[in-house]
Structure formats: C-alpha cells, structure tokens
C-alpha cells in the first residue's frame, strides 16, 4: 500500500488527505519536503528555522487542504505557504532584533545569505558566483528572486506573499537580475 501511494499523482493524494487520510498526506510531505526545505533554507538562511517553517507549513496544509480548489496544484500551494511562512519568520526576526539589539539578529547556525547549505556536492563555478552575487542583493530583491526562481511563483503570487504590487515585483526582480548578471560577470 505504501508503495502504491508513492506512485500515484498529487491530485489523488491531496483528495485523500482532504478526506482525512494521514498516510496520503505523509506521502505528499515526503515527496515535496526536500523542495520546501530548500526554499525555506534559502529564504531564512537558517537550517533550524527552515525545519520549523516546513513543520508549520505541513500543519497549516493539513488544516486547510479541503479548501484547496485544484488538488493537482498542491505542490505550488505548499511552496506558496512555505514562502509566506518564511517571510513571516524573517519579519518576526527583524522585529525581535530591533528590540534586543543587532547582535541577536542572526541565529547561531545561520547560513550567510549568499553561502549555500553545506553539501558534499562540489558546487560548480556558476553556483559559487551566483551565491556570492546573491549575498550582495538588498533583502527585498533577494526574496523576490528566490520566490521566483526556487519556488516558481508568479508575479501575482509573489506580490501577495510580500504584500507589494505586481509592478513592484517586476521591478525588484529585474533589478535583482541586473545586479546578479553584473556581479557574476565581474566574477569571471
């Protein structure tokens, strides 16, 4: 049975999960957990925060699955929830930092925004220079870029996540890309 759930499409799993089938929900969580984690790590820059975000997203998803109109789109939905939760966490962290002082700004295990999660995979030159270039971006531009390129969200979805207009998303994304292109070409 476990094997059968592993091979069925998202819509079947999402339909079952909405009916209360925890096994189907867990299959979805295992299927997309790594993508959610990768997205949350890039956005929050913290391993521990990223796993908290993934857990919160899964709790919210279980509660709200029956409101999902298009069960086949469950992956995009989970990524949108991950984007929103990660941004919420960054806002809370910033508010907290203003209250307690800048030295508490980052948790101890913070991955610097440009540095990637540690990996045995030897990163290629393209990845290394992109990571370095990402760390030079203003935070708001970096978020737009990650929501677009890692989460695959549309301009409208990013606009809702960041609470800005689609036109601002377009502008920030373009400025982010201009800077990234420039930085990466300097790198060569």
């Amino acid at each position: 049975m476990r094997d059968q759930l592993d091979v069925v499409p998202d819509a079947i799993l999402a339909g079952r999960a909405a009916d209360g089938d925890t096994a189907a929900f867990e299959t979805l969580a295992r299927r997309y957990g790594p993508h959610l984690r990768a997205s949350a790590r890039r956005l929050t820059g913290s391993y521990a925060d990223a796993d908290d975000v993934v857990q919160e997203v899964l709790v919210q998803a279980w509660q709200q699955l029956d409101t999902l109109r298009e069960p086949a789109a469950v992956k995009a939905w989970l990524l949108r929830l991950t984007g929103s939760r990660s941004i919420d966490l960054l806002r809370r962290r910033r508010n907290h930092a203003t209250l307690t002082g800048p030295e508490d700004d980052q948790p101890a295990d913070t991955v610097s925004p440009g540095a990637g999660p540690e990996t045995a995979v030897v990163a290629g030159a393209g990845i290394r220079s992109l990571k370095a270039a990402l760390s030079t971006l203003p935070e708001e531009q970096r978020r737009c870029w990650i929501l677009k390129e890692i989460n695959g969200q549309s301009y409208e979805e990013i606009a809702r996540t960041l609470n800005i207009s689609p036109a601002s998303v377009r502008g920030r994304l373009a400025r982010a890309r201009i800077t990234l292109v420039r930085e990466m070409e300097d790198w060569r």
Partner: protein
Amino acid sequence: MSMPHETFECGHTLEELSLYLDTGEFPDPPHLESCPECRSGLDSLRRLSAAGEELFASDLAAAGSGNDDWMKEILAHLALELRPGRSIPLRADDPADTLSQTEGSVLALVRSVTDNLPGAVAGKVRLDGDVTVPGEPVSVRLDLAVLFGHPLMPSAASLREDLAEALARHTELNVAAIDITITDVIEAPREEM
C-alpha cells in the same frame, strides 16, 4: 562582454527583457532578433537563469530525501487531528441508546476496500445525500487511479460489487449509486525522489 546599463541605446531596458523571459511579452518582438544589445542582454539573463536552476538542484540535493530522519521527526511532531466529517446515525436496539458512525470512517472504509483491489488506488471519496437522516438515498462518488497493466472496466465493475457489499455490511446507508471516475492511469513507476 560587459553588461549592462539598465537602458540600452535602442531605448529598451533590461527590465523589459526580464519580463519578456518570464511572460513572453515585449512591445516589439522582431526587434529582439535584430538588436545586438538586446540579444546580448537576453543571453546574460538566460545564463543567470541556468545558474539559478543549478543552484536549485544543488540546494535540493543538500536538503536530503523525504525519507530521511529529519522528515520522520517532523511528521512525528505533526499530530494530525482526525477529520470526522458528518455524524451518521445507526439503529439502536434500545431506544435510549444513541449510536452513530463518522463520515470519516465510511470514507476510510471505501478507500480501504478500493486499495485492496490489485492495481487500484482510491482518490477523493464523496457521500452525496443527507447521511444524517436514516434511509435517505446516498450516492458514493469515488475517484480512482488504476496502475498500468490492470484492466480498467473489469476493475471498476468488480470494485463496485466489493464496495456495495462492504457498505451493506459495515454501514446502514441507503446506497442508491456508486459512481467511480477513473481519473488517472499510472503508466510507470515514479522516479525515486
């Protein structure tokens, strides 16, 4: 190659090119073929996009598998609450007793009978009709995925019989119809993720 001022000599901007790559919208598409600056700008943006895909692949690999301990730990902490759904009354021998079963348990029964049929996996299940009133006609509607190599129509026919029998045995629902929609035929094993 040097990149880029935000506005090219031709008057177009990198912002326009960035939008073009995402949406295909551009005020003057033929221009992109002929303008060296715009073409070079698009090349740079495409290289960036390729680097972004590489970065994502590397991040995804670093995130581990969904079958690893980190996910097991998260799942163990979720404590997913049950979805009982509507309450379906059952006959009691003693009128002082109130017996019922949950809609969720009937949906689980339908899934379990379906999944037991070789090659069949249940999807969404609906009970149409007022199940809270005894004797009201109820239609059972079921999405079904069938694994490749299993015959579709015989599967659906024998599943309908199995479901009718199980529902008659384990519920008091007045099942007027069992509608099965085959939503997916699964061709081949999914790639390991």
